[in-house]
């Protein structure tokens, strides 16, 4: 059981890395990856929001929407899912913003516009959506699966995705700090060279794909 949870975490961080495998969260990935300390702060903020959002959307999805659709009332609120997801994420981001402004005003100033933009970070909504694809949601007619076990999987998946994002953005920031002193062809400066570096990173991460089996 522990091994399985560890595997979910490792898979999310290294093999199916949200940035380098699923192309999620590319806007902050290209925008905030100039300095390692900022990249790390961004990664931590995203990890926190993602963990909270993943567990809350899982709870709403399974304990409310799924329950209502299988109970005797049989109301299917599935069509509201995306709107609810985005609400939960926006609320969590608001919380993080208030917390940072109060306790880390220095970091808050440096994030600027990128902090509220975490709401529209596809990595977070993507994480909530992929929970369903990965099969961490309750399924009608499935027997003998504890609710808490499914929740633990979803939670670990959220943490893993956040850490994977942090790892990818910190690696990129480290490379870009060096890149500033190298002689890049004029037309490829900025976004283009960053994307090509990301391609090489993604290729390196493909090497991990054997671990999960």
């Amino acid at each position, binding site marked *: 059981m522990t091994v399985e949870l560890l595997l979910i975490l490792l898979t999310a961080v290294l093999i199916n890395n949200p940035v*380098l*495998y*699923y*192309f*999620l*969260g*590319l*806007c902050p990935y*290209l925008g905030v990856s100039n300095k390692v300390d900022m990249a790390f702060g961004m990664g931590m903020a995203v990890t926190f929001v993602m963990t909270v959002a993943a567990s809350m959307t899982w709870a709403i999805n399974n304990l409310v929407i799924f329950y209502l659709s299988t109970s005797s009332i049989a109301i299917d609120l599935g*069509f509201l899912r*995306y*709107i609810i997801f*985005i609400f939960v994420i*926006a609320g969590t981001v608001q919380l993080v913003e208030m917390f940072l402004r109060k306790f880390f005003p220095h970091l808050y100033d440096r994030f600027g516009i990128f902090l*509220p933009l975490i*709401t*529209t*970070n*596809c990595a977070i*909504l*993507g994480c909530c*959506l*992929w929970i*369903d*694809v990965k099969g961490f949601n309750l399924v009608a007619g499935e027997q003998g699966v504890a609710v808490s076990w499914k929740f633990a999987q979803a939670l670990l998946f959220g943490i893993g995705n956040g850490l994977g994002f942090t790892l990818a953005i910190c690696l990129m920031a480290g490379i870009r700090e060096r890149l500033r002193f190298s002689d890049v*062809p*004029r*037309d*490829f400066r900025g*976004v*283009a*060279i*960053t*994307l*090509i570096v*990301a*391609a*090489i990173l*993604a*290729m390196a*991460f*493909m090497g991990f794909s054997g671990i999960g089996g």
Partner: protein
Amino acid sequence: MADKSSEPSSLVRFINGILPENPVLRLVLGICPTLAVTASMEGAITMGLAATFVLFCSNFFVSLLKRFLQPHLRILVFTIIIATFVTIVDMFLKAFMYDMSRTLGPYIPLIIVNCIIIARAEACASKSRLLPSLADALGMGLGFTLALCILASVREILADGTWLNIPVMWEGFTTWTIMKLAPGAFLAFGLVVGANNFIRRKLEERKS
């Protein structure tokens, strides 16, 4: 509200979105779906049209509601409007194009957080009249679709030797599997952005 003389006309807005201010190639917005769905032309066209529809509808409603928007709540309002239309698109694809909906998977709901749509609602629709914002939506949407198609052409031709499932390469062409995977997406997009910069620079040099 901006007065009419300082506002670019609808036609200018429409043309602007397609090439001069192409959302993907020039402004580098909304690149998550750009990379994810461009492994094949079919996926790229479907995603492009879906995003255009959502952009058109959201610009329509944001432009109508612009008087009632509160500054601190506007992003939330934009997101709810967008999420509504994305739900419609998602249901439409599930009902009528099931295979495509399976291929694109969660990338369709991810249109909600596509920066292009929120950026246009914020920068254009919440400030201009109805007609220019609709023209802007169509231009930006088509520009997005065009950029997706360019990228998908490069990737599909190199990865499978086909274009829209029609074989285009010679007999015995060695397919580049890497172009179908994540690294190929980043590489192809990086090269396309670089090439676009190069072409623009050459054009500007010729002009001056």
